[in-house]
């Protein structure tokens, strides 16, 4: 039966009917899942150099992202976990001074050019140590997308791995907060048990583990209802 009345809003200037392009049902469900998994007050945030926890991160490009995949959560180790190596580096920066005092105490004096090069080399090596520690923290990333959980591991320059698991393969998500510092600064280990080849993922010392577990659980629950 022909339509007797067509709303003016659905007509374009030429008077033709505009057909609304319907979003496919599965896509709609995924979008709903995403919107329910994240708290309503979580705006898009820009990831900067020291970000350790970010919901709806902006300005982040993960090259293996599939079509329609959106990063919902970005995690790194809590910033406070860098404290031990910062202390070590700070103490190590005093070593040349102590070494020179030690040498002069025993009456050993190095020529100026040797002292200059040795001190420069020492501080450059220390800078290298600081940089390697920093990038080991910086590139240890966990991403939770609307389709999967991605774990990027990088450690001490020699170990690099990228592992991912789809939400339906996740069997259990839990977190552990052990120690005073972990309680005070609200960080802990999140364990994701999977049915895939990689039996479990460990996101060590991530900030707000409870929120992260809640979000992943919500995503799994909503996806299993789809």
């Amino acid at each position, binding site marked *: 039966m022909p339509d007797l009345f067509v709303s003016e809003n659905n007509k374009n200037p030429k008077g033709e009917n505009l057909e609304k392009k319907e979003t496919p049902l599965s896509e709609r469900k995924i979008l709903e899942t995403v919107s329910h998994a994240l708290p309503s007050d979580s705006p898009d945030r*820009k*990831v*900067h*150099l020291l970000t350790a926890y970010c919901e709806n991160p902006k*300005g*982040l*490009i*993960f*090259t*293996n992202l599939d079509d329609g995949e959106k990063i919902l959560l970005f995690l790194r180790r809590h910033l406070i976990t860098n404290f031990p190596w910062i202390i070590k580096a700070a103490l190590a920066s005093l070593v040349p001074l102590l070494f020179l005092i030690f040498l002069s105490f025993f009456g050993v004096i190095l*020529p100026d*050019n*040797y002292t*200059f*090069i*040795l001190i*420069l*080399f020492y501080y*450059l*090596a220390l*800078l*290298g140590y600081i*940089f*390697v520690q920093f*990038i080991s923290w*910086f*590139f240890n*990333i966990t991403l939770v997308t609307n389709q999967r959980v991605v774990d*990027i591991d*990088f450690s001490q*320059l020699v170990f*690099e791995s*990228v592992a991912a698991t789809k939400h339906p393969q996740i069997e259990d998500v839990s977190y552990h907060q052990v120690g005073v510092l972990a309680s005070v600064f609200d960080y802990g280990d999140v364990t994701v048990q999977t049915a895939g080849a990689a039996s479990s993922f460990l996101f060590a010392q991530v900030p707000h583990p409870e929120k992260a577990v809640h979000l992943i659980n919500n995503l799994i629950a909503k996806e299993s209802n789809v």
Partner: protein
Amino acid sequence: MFDLINFFQGILNTFFLVKIFIILAIIIYIVFLLVVVKQVNSLNAVIREVSSTVLRSFAIFMLILAMLLLLTALVIL
């Protein structure tokens, strides 16, 4: 004969050994920094964010500093 002995003694004096040790250490450090630059580049290919460029620039900057240090050591030691 004495000249030859003096020559070898001169070569093998403490500071000469220290110089060789320092130059070797700097060369090893440059190789290490080359690995760092390579790793930073490969990880930037996987995941990129605004500050990744800063890290890459810093790695290259350290490599340049190490090369300058090697040159300086060769000249003044």
